[in-house]
């Protein structure tokens, strides 16, 4: 197959899938947040973290896609093209997992905090640990791109 096409597939994965995961996360957490906002608006400022962490997933995808795009002219061999594709797949899988984690934990965190605000500090761990998954993927994808 053509190396150019394969690396383009990598870019598609790197930008498309993180955006879908970010959208899912924001949809789940945003709607939960809207519900809580009517009851306890004072909690919104700290619960907004769930939505922003969801949004960050799309930015990770954007970064990888952008870096691949800037390397596109250097990719001539199949090996380099495979690396581009693999880095796209890695960031896709990592953000999908992080997105699933944040949307489940985030909506539960929002509900639990509304009921008992003092549980926030321990419940937020679930959200931020899920978000860390995306960072791990990002790092590895990043290192692979560095080797192209």
């Amino acid at each position, binding site marked *: 197959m053509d190396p150019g096409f394969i690396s383009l597939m990598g870019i598609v994965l790197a930008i498309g899938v993180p955006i879908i995961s970010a959208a899912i996360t924001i949809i789940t957490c945003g709607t939960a947040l809207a519900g809580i906002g009517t009851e306890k*608006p004072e909690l919104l*400022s*700290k619960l*907004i*973290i769930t939505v*922003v*962490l969801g*949004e*960050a997933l799309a*930015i*990770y995808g*954007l*970064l990888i896609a*952008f*870096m691949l795009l800037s390397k596109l002219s250097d990719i001539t061999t199949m090996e380099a093209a495979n690396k581009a594709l693999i880095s796209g797949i890695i960031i896709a899988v990592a953000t999908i997992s992080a997105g699933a984690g944040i949307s489940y934990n985030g909506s539960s965190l929002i509900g639990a905090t509304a009921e008992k605000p*003092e549980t*926030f*500090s321990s419940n*937020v*761990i679930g959200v*931020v640990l899920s*978000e*860390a998954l995306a*960072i*791990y993927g*990002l*790092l590895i994808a*990043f290192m692979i791109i*560095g080797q192209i």
Partner: protein
Amino acid sequence: MRKLKVITLEDDVDAVVRSLDEAGIVQFIDMREKVEEWNGILASQVVSTEVLTKCSDLLSKIDASFENLGLKHEELHSKKIPITKEPIEEVLAKVEQNLAELPVEALTKCSALTSRITQLIEILGVKPEEIKEVILKKPVEESLAEIEYELSEIEKTAETTGLIDRHAMVDRIKTVAAREEIDVHKKLAEFARVRIIESKPFFAKRLLTLKKLVEKARESIEAETKLGKTHESLLTLRKIVEIEKQVAEEQKKFVRSAKTIYFEAWVSEYNVKEAIERITKVTAGTSIVTDDPPAPDEKVPIILKPVPNYLIAFEKLVYSFGHPTSRDVNPIHALAITFPILFGIMFADVGQGAIFVIMGIILTLLRRRIKLEEVGDIIQYLLISGEMFVFLGISSIFFGFVFGEFFGPSGLIHPISLGKIGPFYIGGFEPTHEPMKMLKFAIFVGAIHISLGLVFRFVNEIRHKHYKLAPIPICWLWLLIGSLYMWAYWRGISNISKWFADGSLMLAGLIILPLTFILVFTGIAEGFMEGVGFSVEVFAETLSHSMSYSRLMALGLIHSAMNYLFLVLAGVEHGYFPLASIPLIAIGTLLVMIIEGLVVFVHTLRLHWVEWFSKFHTGEGIPFKPFKYT
């Protein structure tokens, strides 16, 4: 913080609570959860719903009077409410009696009359003039009835003769005259001569006199009652009822035997003496009061010191996670330094940092002119964070010079190196070109940040007198710095096989030994199984939390890359900004500052809340809120 334990007679308890309420120095402890501990010797104090209902009832009655009299509902500052020793029921009964004695009905009538007269005066366009002293010739009730009768007569006359709306009356006469074929001018002249011209001055003077009479009536009504000015007495009564309601509510936290009441309360060390004096004075020595220091592991409310204006935003960041427990290190001041640094590393940019500084200064200046209560939520947050923006901006500018960024990697500024510690370069490279150097720098910063947290943990353990647990943070620090050293010494994780072969001694000394110590110390303090669990946790946390700081590099690169995107689109090369590129750069900067700025802010917050606070700040403290009438 001291704990007061008070036993007092049932009859005195209302006065005791009232007296403490006035001082506002104690926080009552809810005893209901502990009732079971006394095996039926003490039961929880039941506050009768009758009292609470009566309070609400009286409050709504007083509010209704306020509305009827058209009085304003202002706070009563000057008058001090004396503390009575009577039980709540009697106080409430007295209030009710006083309320009944107040001449609310007569005064309502006065207000109604005054407003009717004022309305008429306005419609007729009467000019105010001096009226001589008037005297009420009959008793107030009768005079008011007479005034009302006369007023309605005037109103009637005014309506029928067209005094109220002269133009409408003239129009009516014209139409009638046209229909009946009468000479309009003649009729109008007759009408004017007889009614309007003659009667208006008379009515005007009479109305003003009536107004004065009503005022006089009002004065004499108020003079007859012993309670003084009605407005003031209503406010006083309202305040009394509110205090009683609060006193009753607060007593739900107490426990009782047949004739005595027992309660516990927190009081700060400075106020112990005053609190005890107040209780003894009110009960005339028939109470038992002890003050004890809190038990070692008891949750003690913490007195939060107010912070200066420029730290308020950081205070909010800390307290929205949770309040520190008593005797813990309060991380606000440390956070005010580390937060901007971590933010600046991720948002390194000289130009955008400068925009942040300017924005912060403008917000700070605006805050002095705008009342915070009058603006919306988001504007309020922005105004509060004025100084924080300045801090963040300064840090961004600093790291912008270190990493050579001016509105992105435009090439205008060259990275400035601050030195090199082992394999860790501090600045002097462009993150996009040498990401591995940036990654090392990020982990290095993370290790320093975590170490600071561990030092705080050590201080906390000492302050709590947990001497058995105090070595753990030290060993943890040893493990953290040791593993960082090993990572640097063996040039990264890719040579891990060498860690176990050539570096086995180093591995034992820097990683296995501190972990063993942690296991042993936790084992001594809390049991062997906890020790095993905790040391595994420490190992995993050290690894994952340090790794987590790699987001400093990831987000720093994202920031750089997003700016680079706009630089390429705008055609900026080698630090030369063409004039046509400026609008595009402006749009890009706006986007980056809003979207990326928010993401970076949340990540900085998350690094503090999770990676840093988990070392020393549990957020389980309760702020000390003394019980006081508000």
